[in-house]
């Protein structure tokens, strides 16, 4: 006789989960400052051995310096603050990532449907597709950027292409698994009522695949942000948070906190990007049982 969790459990968890996460982040921040304070106190050496990471302000700025730099001007003599500048660059990156995600997931879904229905194609192509994922796709990034340049396209198109390329695979794999997920009973039932392939696909396989597709989309979202940032690194000019990180890395000794601020903003943006998708998922699947 298993005890059922109370109805209030889910609500309590929704409140305590973010709290726990905040607590863990606070502990991590404490570790950063604690390590720094310790390193300062022992002059970066214990028992004659140097600490792995130096703790001076150049290597590890105080967290408040990093956060404080966000309100300072982005450049000397400039009126816009660093925060506004970084957020502006981030929106450029997120737009590229979003387009890439959309294109990549559509391609991924189409491939999944193709693989489902044309077995020979799936048998021959699938292993190569899996193998292609072990190729570090980011290595192809400079190539794609140059293709885009040769074709006279603006740099963001190439960056979007890279994002799409990184995004499609998780969607394909997960969608295919989802499309294959309906049990035999349900398929037999559809056949017994005379449903054709298209009807089975639309009324049974797609809805059944939805949770899987979303799981793939979440992975694809992370991948597309990475793709956009890497694409920006390879693209000679243009904007975006990847560029901003590269620039602030270049001027590191002038203001290390700016690099940290840029990385922080990129991380938060990536997390928010995926969380928006997760929210969408929760809405789309609100009538289903929690897995």
């Amino acid at each position, binding site marked *: 006789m298993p005890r059922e969790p109370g109805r209030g459990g889910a609500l309590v968890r929704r409140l305590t989960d973010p709290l726990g996460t905040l607590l*863990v982040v606070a502990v991590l921040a404490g570790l950063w400052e604690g390590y720094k304070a310790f390193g300062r106190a022992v002059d970066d050496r214990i028992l004659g051995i140097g600490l792995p990471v130096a703790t001076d302000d150049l290597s590890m700025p105080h967290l408040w310096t990093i956060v404080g730099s966000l309100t300072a001007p982005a450049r000397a003599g400039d009126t816009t603050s660093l925060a506004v500048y970084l957020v502006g660059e981030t929106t450029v990156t997120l737009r590229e990532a979003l387009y890439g995600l959309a294109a990549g997931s559509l391609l991924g879904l189409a491939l999944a449907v193709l693989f489902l229905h044309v077995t020979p194609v799936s048998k*021959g192509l699938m292993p190569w597709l899996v*193998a292609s994922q072990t190729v570090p796709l980011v290595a192809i990034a400079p190539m794609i950027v140059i293709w885009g340049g*040769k074709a006279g396209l603006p740099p963001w198109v190439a960056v979007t292409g890279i994002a799409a390329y990184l995004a499609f695979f998780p969607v394909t794999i997960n969608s295919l698994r989802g499309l294959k997920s309906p049990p035999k009973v349900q398929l037999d039932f559809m056949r017994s009522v005379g449903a054709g392939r298209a009807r089975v696909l639309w009324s049974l396989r797609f809805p059944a695949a939805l949770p899987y597709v979303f799981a793939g989309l979440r992975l694809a979202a992370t991948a597309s942000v990475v793709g956009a*940032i890497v694409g920006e690194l*390879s693209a000679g000019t243009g904007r975006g948070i990847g560029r901003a990180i590269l620039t*602030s*890395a270049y001027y590191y000794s002038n203001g290390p906190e700016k690099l940290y601020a840029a990385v922080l903003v*990129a991380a938060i943006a990536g997390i928010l990007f995926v969380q928006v998708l997760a929210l969408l998922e929760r809405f789309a699947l609100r009538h289903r049982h929690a897995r």
Partner: protein
Amino acid sequence: MSTLRLSRPAGGPALKARALRFTPVALTAVILLSLWQAAITLFDVPVFIMPTPVMIAEAFQHDFGTIMSASRSTVEPVLLGLVMGSLGGVAVALVVSRFPRLSGPVLNTAVLINCAPIVALAPIFNNWFGVTSLLSKAGVAAVMVFFPVFVNTTRGLLQIAPLHLEIMESLAAGPRQVAFLLRLPNALPFVFNALKLGTTLAVIGVIVSEYFGGSTEALGVYIAYQAALPRFDYAWAGILVSGAIGLGLFGAVTLLERILMPWHDSLHEEKS
């Protein structure tokens, strides 16, 4: 329905089945390669858009020494990062899973952080450990590998079938016995899944941090440099080698998995 699956099929039929399985795979490769070669020759596609497979092979042969030494300096941090990241991930998972109340929030945070583009750490590590240091490249790879390994291992250690726990309880097994006889073997498939993902991530991490500076004798730099020249046949040769590295590592982990988990290869066969 009692489908009996007796001992593994003997060598003869198994080999035949295997050959049958790989025929379409090999066929697809041959078709794709010849289509590629034919299309470029037929439509007279300029090299700067897409070289033919033959040209790439020639480029590889011509620049063999440079590509190989560049590969070596890329592989070293990849391996180091993979080892550091997976050892770290497993170690932290072992600690965190000891405290069930702690593991929930820590896991949630790790999943969140894993959504962030970790490659952005590359310039920071360059400043910490030095641009030319092996550690700065391996560090990025290690952090990228750490998160999936940590998250998966923790799940594997904690997601135990209630029935299995009850069996151990009925046997009056102590916590150490539950850990060694149940939790660790249960986590093994989770760990290997993460390691397979990790091989790709480690290569990505190192190649991206090569963009942020360091020794120019590196595969990522080589590819970017050749692409910019533009000598696409040489760039492609580099890309294919980086792919071979990723594939080789993936294969090595898969092999290790088969050796360590003989009960599991059945499941692989059925899934594909």
